[in-house]
C-alpha cells in the first residue's frame, strides 16, 4: 500500500478501538447509491521504478530545442544552490505559515523577499506573491479600482504594447466585476505607447493606466512621461515590469514625479525554470498608502514575549480567511516555494550580479538581432530601445519560418501575426545570457536556409521534415 504505513495488526487494533468491523463501515453515513465502483478507467498503480521509466521517456520525447523564445518566460541560468536549497524538506513540505512560531524559516524568508522586491522595484511594500504575472496584473487592476477613490468608472487604460496574454487573463478575471479594459495603440515607428492615442483619453475617468516596462515588443517605454500623464489625469499608474530588467532600469517607484502606484509582474526570471509555464509567481508591490488594498499574504516583523524579533503574517483582515466576502481577493494558497527560490536567487546574484546578467541578455539580443538582420529581407521594424527582446520582420510567413526552424530544433521566437497582423511576418526574438555566439550563429545559418528554401521552392513550405 504505497505511502500507507498500516500493518494488518494496526488496522485490527484501530477498528476495535473505533468499534467497527471493517474500514468500509466508516463510510456508513454515505448513502449506498452514491458509492462508486472500481474506477477501472484509472490505470493500475505502478512502482516508482516504472513511473520513473515512463517519465524519463516523456521528458526525453520533447527534446531540448535551442531557445530564442521569450514572450514572458525566459531561459536564464539559475545557480545550482537555488533549487538544492529550495527543495529541502523544511521549505518544500511546510504549509502556509499559520503557526508563526513553528514557521520562522518561511516567514523570515518571505520578509527578506519583500525587502528585496521593494529594493528592486523602488516601491514601499510587497506582498508574498500571487499566482503569476498575468493574474498579478488582474489583481493590480482590482486594487487600483478599489484604491482610486476619485474614479468611479471601473475603467482601465491598457496599451496594446502589453503582453496579449496578460490582457486576456486580466480581462477574464476582472470582467465579472464589470471592469472594462480600454486599449491604446502603439506608435508603429518606435514600438512604444502611442502618445497621441493616449492623449485622446485625457480628462476621462479611468482608474488606472497600465505601463509595461519593457513592453511586449521588448521595447522600453518612456515610463516617466506615462506615469506623470496618468497622475495628471487622476489615474493610478500600474507598472508591469520584468524584475531582471528592473536591475538596470529606473525602478517603478521612481518613475516620473512621484513614481508608479502599483508595480507587478512575472517573477519567473528570478530563479524559476521555464518548466512549461509554471509554477512561476506573480509579484505585487505598491505604495504604503495602498497596502490595505493589497491582496495576498503579507509578512510583518514584530517581537515575541521577550522582545526578540520575529516574523508573522500580518494585515490578515484583508484576507479571505478573516474577511470572507469582503476580502481584497479570494487568493489563499500562493506560490511560496517559487518565492523561496527567488529569494535565494536574488541573494546569491546580488544587485550587481543581476545587472551583469541583464546587460548580457541585452548584448546577446542586440547581437542576435544584428546577425539576423544581415540576412536578406530580415529587418527590425521598431526604433525604440530594447531590453532583451526584439521584433524582426521576415520575408516569409512567421508561422512557416518558426515551424521550419523548430524542425531544425530551434525555437525561433514568438509569432506576432495573430495578435498584431498589421506587423505582417513579424516575430519576437530573445537571446538571454545563456545563448552563446555559436548558438546565435546556428540560428542565423538555419534561418538563412529556411529563407533560401522559401525563395527557391515555395511548395516546400509545409515542412515534411
Amino acid at each position: 500500500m504505497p505511502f500507507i504505513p498500516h500493518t494488518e495488526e494496526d488496522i485490527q487494533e484501530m477498528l476495535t478501538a473505533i468499534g467497527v468491523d471493517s474500514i468500509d463501515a466508516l463510510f456508513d453515513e454515505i448513502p449506498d447509491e452514491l458509492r462508486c465502483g472500481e474506477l477501472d478507467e484509472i490505470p493500475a498503480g505502478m512502482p516508482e521504478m516504472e513511473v520513473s521509466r515512463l517519465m524519463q521517456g516523456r521528458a526525453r520525447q520533447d527534446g531540448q530545442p535551442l531557445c530564442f523564445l521569450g514572450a514572458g518566460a525566459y531561459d536564464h541560468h539559475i545557480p545550482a544552490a537555488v533549487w538544492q536549497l529550495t527543495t529541502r524538506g523544511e521549505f518544500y513540505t511546510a504549509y502556509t505559515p499559520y503557526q508563526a512560531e513553528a514557521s520562522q524559516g518561511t516567514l523570515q524568508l518571505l520578509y527578506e523577499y519583500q525587502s528585496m522586491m521593494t529594493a528592486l522595484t523602488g516601491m514601499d511594500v510587497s506582498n508574498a506573491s500571487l499566482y503569476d504575472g498575468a493574474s498579478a496584473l488582474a489583481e493590480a487592476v482590482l486594487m487600483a479600482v478599489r484604491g482610486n477613490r476619485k474614479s468611479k468608472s471601473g475603467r482601465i487604460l491598457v496599451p496594446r504594447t502589453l503582453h496579449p496574454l496578460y490582457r486576456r487573463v486580466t480581462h477574464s478575471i476582472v470582467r465579472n466585476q464589470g471592469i472594462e479594459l480600454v486599449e491604446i495603440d502603439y506608435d508603429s515607428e518606435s514600438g512604444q505607447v502611442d502618445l497621441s492615442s493616449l492623449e485622446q483619453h485625457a480628462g476621462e475617468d479611468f482608474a488606472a493606466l497600465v505601463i509595461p516596462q519593457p513592453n511586449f515588443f521588448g521595447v522600453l517605454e518612456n515610463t516617466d512621461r506615462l506615469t506623470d500623464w496618468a497622475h495628471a489625469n487622476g489615474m493610478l499608474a500600474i507598472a508591469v515590469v520584468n524584475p531582471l530588467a528592473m536591475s538596470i532600469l529606473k525602478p517603478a517607484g521612481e518613475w516620473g514625479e512621484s513614481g508608479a502606484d502599483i508595480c507587478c509582474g512575472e517573477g519567473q526570471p528570478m530563479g524559476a525554470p521555464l518548466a512549461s509555464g509554471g509554477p512561476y509567481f506573480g509579484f505585487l508591490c505598491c505604495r504604503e498608502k495602498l497596502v490595505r488594498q493589497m491582496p495576498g499574504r503579507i509578512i510583518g516583523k514584530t517581537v515575541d514575549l521577550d522582545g526578540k524579533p520575529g516574523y508573522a503574517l500580518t494585515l490578515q483582515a484583508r484576507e479571505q480567511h478573516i474577511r470572507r466576502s469582503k476580502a481584497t481577493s479570494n487568493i489563499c494558497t500562493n506560490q511560496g516555494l517559487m518565492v523561496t527560490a527567488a529569494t535565494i536567487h536574488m541573494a546569491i546574484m546580488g544587485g550587481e550580479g543581476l545587472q551583469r546578467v541583464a546587460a548580457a541578455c541585452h548584448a546577446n539580443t542586440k547581437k542576435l538581432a544584428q546577425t539576423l538582420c544581415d540576412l536578406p529581407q530580415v529587418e527590425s521594424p521598431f526604433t525604440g530601445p530594447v531590453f532583451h527582446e526584439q521584433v524582426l520582420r521576415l520575408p516569409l510567413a512567421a508561422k512557416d519560418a518558426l515551424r521550419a526552424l523548430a524542425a531544425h530544433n530551434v525555437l525561433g521566437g514568438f509569432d506576432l501575426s495573430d495578435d498584431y497582423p498589421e506587423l505582417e511576418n513579424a516575430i519576437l526574438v530573445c537571446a538571454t545570457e545563456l545563448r552563446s555566439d555559436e548558438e546565435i550563429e546556428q540560428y542565423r545559418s538555419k534561418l538563412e536556409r529556411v529563407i533560401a528554401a522559401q525563395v527557391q521552392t515555395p511548395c516546400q513550405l509545409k515542412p515534411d521534415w
Partner: protein
Amino acid sequence: MIYEQSRSGRQATAQTNFEMPALPDIPQELLREQPAGLPEVSEMQAVRHYTRLSQKNFSIDTHFYPLGSCTMKYNPRACNSLASLPGFLSRHPLAPDTHSQGFMACMHELQEILKHVTGMHAVSLSPAAGAQGEFAGVAMIRAYHDARGDDARTEILVPDAAHGTNPASAVMCGYKAREIPTGQDGDIDLEALKEVLGPQTAGIMLTNPSTVGVFERRIKEIAGLVHDAGGLLYYDGANLNAILGKVRPGDMGFDVIHMNLHKTFSTPHGGGGPGAGPVGVSQRLEPYLPVPMVDFDGSDYVWLTEKERSDTIGRLSAFAGNAGVLLRAYVYARLLGREGMHRVAEFSSLNANYLLKRLMEAGFDAAYPERRASHEFILTLKKQAKELGVNTMDFAKRMLDYGVHAPTTYFPLLVPECLLVEPTETEAKEDLDDFVEIMKTIKQEAETQPELVKQAPHTMPVRRLDDVRAARELDLAWKGQE
C-alpha cells in the same frame, strides 16, 4: 537576516564572473543609478543562511502536521525528481506541439484520471490553486446562466462553515455571497436552505464532507432543491481526500468541482504554495472551461485555446497554470493507481476516526459526537477554555513544544474554541497514539500549571509573537541596520 550579512562590494562571483557589457543604446534617463539594494553576500553565506533558516520550520518531512482542511500528507520524493527532469524543466511554455508531446501526454492523462475519479464530464487543469479553481467554477456558473439569458441570478449560497475562499470567490465573480446555517448535527439546515433558494440563486458552494468534518447525508436532496430552483452546485474539492475512490462528486449531482492537488494529490505545499486547482464540470458547463486544455486528436496531443473554445471563460494565467505541480500530481496518480486511490479515503478515514475515538476517551469533546468523522474532525475546547482559562490557541502553541504542528484553530468559525484535526492516511498508528498522549499531557498541564500552557511555546526559535504590533507598527521590509 540576510541583509545583516551584506557588505558593500561582496559578490557570489562564481555566477557573474564575466564582463559586464555596456548599455550604450539605452537612454540614460531609463537606467537606474545604483544597483538595487539586494544583499551582497557570498554564495556560502547564502547557502548557510537559508539552510539554517529552513531548520526553523515545521514541515511534513520533519513533524506530524495534522492541520485540518489542509491534508498535510507525505509528498513523495519521486514526484519532485520526476517533475524536475531536465526535459520538463527546460520546456518553454510556448514550445510548438512537435516539441511538447511528452508533456502533453501527461497532462491529457491527468485530465482523464481526474475526470474518472470525480465522475465529471470534463476537466481543465489550468487554475493555479483552489481559490482560482473556485473562481473558474463560479465564473462558469455565471457564463452558463448568462448564455441562457438567465441574468437575474445574483446570489451564491455558502454554508456558514465554508472556507473563506468560497464567499470571496463568489464576490470576485460579481455575485453576492449569502450564508446558510449548519444544523446541530453538522448537516446543512435544509429548511433554511429552502427559504433562501429562489430565482436569484445562481448556485451553491458545498464541501462534502463539509468543513465540519462530516458527510452531508442529504446531498442528493440538496442537489434536487438547488437544481429545481435553477441554480447549480459547486463542489469545493478541498476535502476530496476523504472520499477519493469511494464516492464521486459527479454522482452526487454536482455541476462543477475544483480539486486541490496540493492536498488530495499530495503535491507539496511549499510553505504557501504553489498548488493546483483543476476544475471538473458536468456536460452543460463543458463549453465554459478555462483554457488552455489538452486534447488528443487520434494521433497527436493538441492544445485547445480561445480559438477552438469560443465560449470559454478565458485564461487565468499567462500559460497553462502550474505545470510542474500538475506533473507531480500525475506522478502521484500513477504511483497510486486506482487501488491506491481507494485506499486514500479508507485510511485517512480510519486514522481520523481512530484518533477521534481515542481523544474522546481521553476526555476531549467532539463537536459532532454522534457523527462519523470523515478524514478530519472537530474538537471543541470550550470546556477547557471556560474552566481552566486555557484556550485553543494555548493548546495549539503548547503542541509545538511537543514536536507536533497544531491542528487548524478557530476554523470553522461556527464551532467555538475548535481544533480541526486531520491526520491523513500517511501517518502511522504510533504517531496518532503519541498525539493522544500529548493532548492528555497538555490537558493535565492546563489543570495543574495553566501558565505553562498559556505562555507556550517555550522551545521554538521565538516565543509567542506580538501580532497586534505587527499590524499596528507595520514593518514589511528591511530598511537597513537600526
